[in-house]
């Protein structure tokens, strides 16, 4: 699964993208976030507060309780602030 990070999530993790292979128990976006938080101190900083995060699966906005299903690309980022 390809992960993309934007804004301060990207900065905290230290990279804008990475490929991961989470365990089978990780079935939703929220579970993915919890699992990612354990991967490094940078990940821990980025993913400590899921309430501050938003997500997209295969370039569509989804809520954090969405099942990952056959997701190829999952993006994690703060709420958008364009315009």
């Amino acid at each position, binding site marked *: 699964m390809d992960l*993309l990070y*934007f*804004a*301060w999530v990207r900065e905290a993790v230290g990279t804008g993208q990475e490929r991961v292979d989470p365990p089978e128990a990780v079935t939703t976006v929220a579970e993915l976030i919890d699992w990612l938080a354990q991967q490094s101190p940078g990940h821990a900083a980025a993913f400590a507060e899921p309430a501050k995060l938003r997500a*997209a699966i295969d*370039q*569509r*906005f989804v809520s954090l309780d969405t099942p990952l299903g056959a997701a190829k690309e999952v*993006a994690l*980022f*703060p*709420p*958008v*602030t*364009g*315009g």
Partner: protein
Amino acid sequence: MIRVSIDSAPIELAVELSALEERGAGGVASFTGVVRGGDGITALELEHYPGMTEDALCTLAEAAMDRWNLLGVTILHRIGRMEVGERIVFIGTAAAHRREALDACAYLIDRLKTDAPFWKREWRGQETSWVEPRASDAQAATRWES
């Protein structure tokens, strides 16, 4: 006609507005967002989600064309670093009647704020901080739900 562009180059208003007028419209409405100074801000920096952001803007433009009788929609958004006074975003709409052009323009900028994946950070000299979303933006977007 829909024109969507995400680019680091400056936005040229005269060119964009003339193109909309040439759609044969009776009225062209526009909104231009500009980097505002004050509070120590020296520049803004905009980041986007390549692919998804372009799709989001096209989807918004199509939604406006479906909802109003428009002859043209243009949505331009800059990315990268912009100094105070520079244009960040341009929305332009062309229609036979002013009400449709004006309503569609307001709709597009309201919805862009919540629906398009952009992230903004403020520069104050060498210091940077990511901008927090505003509750008023989420509220503004809901007034278009029907």
